[in-house]
């Protein structure tokens, strides 16, 4: 006979070992959480597998020439995504320069006691609200507000400074500049939020030390605070860049969907994501496989950038937690 732990407990004790049901439930539930954790990993692998698998025939057929080719003609079966890759990188870099400058400036302005705390919160919420607006709404706004507003200035610049490659075409409608501007607005909240975190995690005593040496506010910011949080801010920029690379709707609506490689800010262009958005719904069997190939390229680029961003953020975190002790 089994001995139980109960022994001779007081008569009115209700203590009892966990019932079989409890134990079975415990095991099942823990197993379930474990299974679902693994499912996350499998999901990522499955996504890669699906897209790569569907792209495989096109990879076999077009090979590396797909990456360097510049024509897209479904009727003749000629496909190349060089203009799209160019457009993706160009628009993202422009957006990063604009959004990065704004995002980091805002992060500095909202963390270094320039404003009373209440106002800081107000501005912080406004910037966060920018992230809440769906991208398709930004696209709509871009079409009906940004493009008409940019056009006169852009065309004036083109007329007078047209010899500079950046201005060599006129802005007749959709184009690189409006797309990149809207894109920069969309990545600004990410950059500013992550940079804010980086700036906030600079130990207060470092700032005090700088002020104690007679530094002005900006000498402290540029000399001590920014260098200390540089890794985190750099990570913010990389993550923002990753966002920009994958952003679809604003570009599909504003960039003009034209297969060309140009430095001009005012000429229409195309990006990988916009290519997918515009061509997928009406694609035939052949074009579908090719689009999968394009999707695979986009996935590879964004995964790479995001990996780098995450690695930088991890290092920033480790550096700070190491430096604190």
């Amino acid at each position, binding site marked *: 006979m089994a001995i139980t732990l109960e022994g001779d407990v007081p008569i009115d*004790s209700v203590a009892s070992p966990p019932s079989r049901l409890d134990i079975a439930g415990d095991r099942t539930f823990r197993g379930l959480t474990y299974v679902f954790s693994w499912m996350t990993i499998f999901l990522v692998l499955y996504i890669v597998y699906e897209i790569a698998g569907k792209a495989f025939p096109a990879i076999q057929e077009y090979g590396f020439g797909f990456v360097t080719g510049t024509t897209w003609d479904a009727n003749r079966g000629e496909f190349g995504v060089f203009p799209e890759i160019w457009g993706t990188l160009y628009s993202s870099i422009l957006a990063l320069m604009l959004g990065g400058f704004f995002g980091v400036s805002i992060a500095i302005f909202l963390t270094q006691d320039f404003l009373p705390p209440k106002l800081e919160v107000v501005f912080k919420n406004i910037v966060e609200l920018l992230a809440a607006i769906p991208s398709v709404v930004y696209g709509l706004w871009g079409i009906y507000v940004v493009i008409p507003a940019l056009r006169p200035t852009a065309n004036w610049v083109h007329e007078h400074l047209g010899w500079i490659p950046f201005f060599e075409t006129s802005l007749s409608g959709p184009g690189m500049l409006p797309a990149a501007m809207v894109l920069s607005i969309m990545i600004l909240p990410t950059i500013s939020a992550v940079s804010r975190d980086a700036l906030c995690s600079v130990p207060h005593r470092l700032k005090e030390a700088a002020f104690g040496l007679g530094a002005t506010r900006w000498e402290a910011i540029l000399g001590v605070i920014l260098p200390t949080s540089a890794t985190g801010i750099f990570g913010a920029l990389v993550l923002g860049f990753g966002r920009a690379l994958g952003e679809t709707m604003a570009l599909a609506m504003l960039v003009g969907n034209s297969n060309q490689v140009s430095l001009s800010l005012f000429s229409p262009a195309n990006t990988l994501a916009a290519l997918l958005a515009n061509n997928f719904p009406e694609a035939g069997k052949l074009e579908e496989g090719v689009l999968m190939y394009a999707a695979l390229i986009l996935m590879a680029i964004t995964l790479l950038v995001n990996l780098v961003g995450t690695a930088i953020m991890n290092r920033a975190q480790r550096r700070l937690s190491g430096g604190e002790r």
Partner: protein
Amino acid sequence: MIMTNTLDSSIVAEPNTNGKNVVIDCKIRNLYYGKFRAVRDSHIPVEEGQVTAFIGPSGCGKSTALRCLNRMNDLVRGFRFDGHVHFRGKDIYHRNVDPVAVRRYIGMVFQQPNPFAMSIYNNVAFGLRLNRVKDDIPERVESALRGAALWDEVKDKLKNSGLSLSGGQQQRLCIARAIATEPTVLLMDEPCSALDPIATRRIEELMTELKEKYTIAVVTHNLQQAQRVADKTAFMYVDTSDGGRTGYLVEYEDTGQLFEDPKEEYTKQYIRGEFS
């Protein structure tokens, strides 16, 4: 963790050497947190119906020893235990024993009051529900709250959050929660350290009442408190001789004996307040 609610009869109890009715017989040969040896060579019996106090300087392993008694240390990563803890003659560290079951019989009250973020009533009924008690829950809650000398203060606001009480009331709520299921032994880790002197007094009186029904083991930093409530006292100290900071049992005695005529030199110095 091993999931069984019964022990097979092959686990043989060690005979009680001192002939008294020992509920928990705790023998720690070595106890590690990772590479760090926290406690060594301590044999502390907890006797039925008595209050056993653990005293000693900070970091000497009192909490560690106490938490061994209901396997709370299992939660710490890297925890290793070499020795045995016999509860009613059965080794609770035997690999067939479910630590969850152990804790149903050996309840615990913590240093910081830690009521759940739910109503006072549900706090006390929590353990009853765990044990799947269906009948008389309101009666059992009331008697537990009475047992913890809290009933009169909260009987009109049982629906309020347990967090809305004062620190002392919260601690008594935690005691009520622990005794609602009538465990055999109650472990208390510095139950009064977060409380003011009056609340401390209430808890001390409570311990004296509770020992009628329960066996109590309590860690305290307050020597007067040990003298007031404990029947037996275990004095632990830190050994730094081998470069580490390993706690060990210096002396275990009747409380009166230990405080009036300690056998060991360390004990003498400690209760005279020569170090802490």
